[in-house]
């Protein structure tokens, strides 16, 4: 058996959670919200997604978790930023940039881990301590963007597992 991952999204508090099947960036706070119902207006930020990776299945330890964008090109004026923090804050959007999601997602696997656990990069995930820190995801759309559906992007998480 190997490990399995669940994407646990936090909706306004650390006790309100939902399991995400997609991380579409929209103009409201909500797990698996419809992107066409909640489009992001030009010149604005999407509401930031706040989620953790929760590991299940059978494994002894997991280390070195990395996040990168493996597929999907940006359109003009579009950027997706991320950030990781051990502390929780409520999603922001509209005119407000998320205070943590400020780094552009790398387009290839970084050389070192960029997803922390307990605020540190030297960690080991075990059966009893099986979640990462809060990962924040937010898109910004400049005034130069044109309306329409943007390309789907694939976010890949890799890790070393024993």
């Amino acid at each position, binding site marked *: 058996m190997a490990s399995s991952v669940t994407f646990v999204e936090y909706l306004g508090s650390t006790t309100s959670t939902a399991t995400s*099947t997609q*991380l579409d960036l929209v103009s409201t706070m909500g797990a698996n919200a419809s992107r066409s119902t909640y489009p*992001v207006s030009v*010149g604005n930020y999407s509401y930031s997604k706040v989620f953790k990776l929760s590991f299940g299945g059978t494994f002894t330890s997991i280390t070195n978790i990395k996040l990168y964008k493996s597929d999907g090109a940006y359109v003009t004026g579009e950027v997706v930023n991320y950030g990781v923090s051990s502390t929780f804050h409520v999603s922001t959007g509209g005119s407000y940039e998320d205070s943590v999601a400020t780094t552009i997602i790398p387009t290839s696997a970084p050389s070192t881990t960029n997803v922390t656990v307990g605020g540190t990069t030297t960690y080991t995930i075990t059966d009893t301590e099986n979640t990462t820190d809060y990962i924040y995801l937010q*898109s910004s759309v400049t*005034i130069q963007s044109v309306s329409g559906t943007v390309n789907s992007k694939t976010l890949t998480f890799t890790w070393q597992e024993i």
Partner: protein
Amino acid sequence: MASDTITTQMVISKDTAYCTEDQFRNETGFTDTTEFTSADIGRKIIEAVEKVKRDVFVSIRLEFTTKDSNDRYFISRRWLANAYGSNVSHGTVTPLDLRIWESDETSSISSAFFLQGSRINRLIHRVPSEGISEIDSVNGYFKLTDDWPSSTGYRIFADYWMAGKPLHEIETELKFANIIWTEILILEEKKGKRMKNGVISISQGGRTITRSEAEFNEWIRDLYQQYQSYVNWCRPYYGKNITIGRFGDRRYGYFPRTGRLSW
């Protein structure tokens, strides 16, 4: 090395009005799509947008901009708003809401503008919207692409539109102003077409509302009062009242400096 993936995607919108058809129908109760067709409501919403922009925003023409060391061209007033007369409204400030001009600083043209002198040779050139690379509506500046100005040293002028508050703060007020003026447009149209012997009727969902013209006018006037309160909240204070005598130049309206709107 193990891995897992998840996708992310979004839809980018550029709003063409401050309210949607659904919002209009929900707020006003005009839900009958036969009596009040989507095409007609959509057209009136766009007409109302221009009316709202004319009433709420103030235009500033050909203002000299000041450039800083980071190539930011600053305008003197805020808050930036949407241009009227453009038939588009994004609810946020875009390059379509600015009109940028350049002219040769070494000639008499720029100084003539500045001094408002009589020897004005209006040789200015419009910088296209694509030439605007960045707008900061809160701090009141814009940047141009590397292609502009077309010659080093050319002065940059700006036409822009301003509101009394940051645009994102008055989204709700603009939405309701848009809805109310759309409703007024519809009622005014119905008044003329449906009036018979001084009585006006509107049918919706099998029921007919019949009112006298006086009652109908009262309904419209009541809507106008609501519209005016939203407009007064959003519009900038621009200009100065001069009082002559005791109540010499008092203006109408709840707030003393809001001025009177004509309908």
